[in-house]
């Protein structure tokens, strides 16, 4: 187990390094960036000096080594070239809380609802609740969360909306982590509904699989109550496929936060990243790409380890056994 974890960890570091390198050279190959756009009207001398200040007078290879050194030693991806003063660290500090809160809320709502619906569907299979849940899931996976977000915003917000919720915005100050629910409820549901469908399906399939296993039959035969059978054998065995679903959820939420934050004007990192992209803010785009990938890679790593803990039958042998 320790060997497996160590091996996966080394792979994780290598992957991150590769992502960093590839992103850096991809971005270095763009002819123009935010800086050239900003300074192209200045006299040549001033242009040169500004380029020097941000280090763009050096060839890409040298810049790469310099950036790599700064990233490894200080975690510093360089200063934003579109908005002077912004660094990845300062932006994360300022903008991470809304994104994290939104994602946690989405996860809690989405996973819980999904698990409950999946368990109901499996226990009442081929009866009315199962069909209703099936249709609901089909609908939810088919309507893009972007559309759900827009429809929710159109129908429920504003003075003419059904719930008079605020159209956009996010709680500030002491409500940053807890409170200000009228702002957070719609973004949460818009993002969560997609996961509800995914989790309900996975849970249902996994539960149906374990309902027909011998250990379940045996448990019934020795006289365990139906609740006990469900909790100890069926639900527990169904956790394996659900755990494998988690890293995808986290990655999906990161991508999802891009447009959910845009729709509801949440001041999170997703909306900032989109700004960086449209302004070609090279250092920030580099920093955010590595940051996003790091989160995904770490969640894949954690789920690999969890996989081994949840299911003792799985032998952790080789790196590519996923």
């Amino acid at each position, binding site marked *: 187990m320790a060997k497996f974890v160590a091996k996966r960890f080394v*792979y994780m570091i*290598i*992957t991150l390094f*590769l*992502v960093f390198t*590839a*992103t850096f050279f*991809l*971005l270095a*190959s*763009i002819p123009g960036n935010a800086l050239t756009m900003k300074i192209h009207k200045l006299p040549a001398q001033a242009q040169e000096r500004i380029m020097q200040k941000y280090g763009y007078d050096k060839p890409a290879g040298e810049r790469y080594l310099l950036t790599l050194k700064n990233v490894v030693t200080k975690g510093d991806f360089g200063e934003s070239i579109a908005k002077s003063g912004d660094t990845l660290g300062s932006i994360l500090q300022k903008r991470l809380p809304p994104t994290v809160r939104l994602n946690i809320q989405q996860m809690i709502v989405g996973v819980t609802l999904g698990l409950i619906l999946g368990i109901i569907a499996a226990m009442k299979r081929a009866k009315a609740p199962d069909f209703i849940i099936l249709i609901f899931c*089909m*609908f939810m*996976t*088919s*309507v*893009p969360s*972007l*559309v759900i977000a*827009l*429809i929710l*915003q*159109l129908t429920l917000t*504003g003075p*003419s909306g059904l719930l008079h919720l605020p*159209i956009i915005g996010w709680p500030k100050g002491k409500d940053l982590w807890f409170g200000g629910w009228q702002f957070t409820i719609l973004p949460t549901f818009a993002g969560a509904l997609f996961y509800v469908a995914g989790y309900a399906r996975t849970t249902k399939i996994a539960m149906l699989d374990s309902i027909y296993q011998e250990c379940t039959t045996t448990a019934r035969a020795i006289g365990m109550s139906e609740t006990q059978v469900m909790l100890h054998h069926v639900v527990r065995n169904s956790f394996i496929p659900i755990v494998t679903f988690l890293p995808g959820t986290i*990655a*999906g939420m*990161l*991508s999802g936060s*891009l*447009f959910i934050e*845009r*729709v509801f004007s949440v001041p999170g990192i997703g909306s900032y*990243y*989109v700004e960086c*992209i*449209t302004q*070609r803010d090279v250092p920030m*785009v580099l920093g*955010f*790409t590595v940051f*996003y*990938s790091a989160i*995904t*890679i770490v969640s*894949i790593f954690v789920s690999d380890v969890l996989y081994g803990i949840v299911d003792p039958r799985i032998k952790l042998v080789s790196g*590519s056994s996923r």
Partner: protein
Amino acid sequence: MNTDTVSIKKPEDRFAFVDQDSLYADEITRKNIGFWADAARRFKQNKVAMFFLIVLVLLIVMSLLGPVISGKDYITINGQDKNMAPCSQYWLGTDNMGRDLFTRSWVGLRTSLVIALVAAGIQLVVGCLYGSIMATLGGIVDDVMMRIVEVISSIPNLILCTLLLVVFGNGYVQLLFALSVTSWTGTARLVRGQILKLRESEYVLASKAMGGSNMHRILKHLLPNTLGLLILELAQAIPSVIFSETSLSFLGIGLMPPNFSLGTMLQQGQSTMNFYPFQLLVPCVLLSLLVLSFNVVGDALRDALDPQLRN
């Protein structure tokens, strides 16, 4: 052996003619039909899927014929007809520049559809080639190629797409490239796994033992057994590409004016939604209907192609 000692009776004495029909009359048999005919038969039994297949065909036909029916083009700007509600002249109203929404919706749908089909096609071809190369060569090549897949799939899909669009600029070709770069890794893994599994299977061994050629094995065993999976992969890829494309266009990173798709229309619709909800609802409904019908048809295909559900 002495043939003289064997006495041969007339066959009529010992044998009687039997009518084959009456002999097997009480045995219930089904006409022997192939895998694809069976799958098609089961797909046709699924009424919901057939309904959505018709919806899908209608959407595709309308995306081609819609602009012709309304008789308007999608770029003419009518200054005095801005933001009109649906009426007899403009069936679904007009947008903030006075362009006919009915025509624009179908053209936007066509763009989204074409992008989705091409990107999904590229994904399948690249994934197949890559996966089969991995599985065939094996060893160190397989290891290195698998690492590359892992690196690419560890960057969130939309993030990599946006990054590539920044690097290569906006436009149809760039968008297609960005969408396909991220999506083929799953297909490659799937194909690799399937080929590795099939190679170990007994009927491939039997084919080898009986002296079947390599080409014969690929055409008769590997390909048909992977085709079902690939059709499903295609059915899943199309909605996800549509989804990515609309998200990117909505964020203003995908297609740039004058090019537009349903995603761009969603973005325009959102900016005016409190006053002219129609401009948001039309692309929303079309998009959902499109993805829904692809999903339902894909699900039904999965059920129809799954050999375990055969009865």
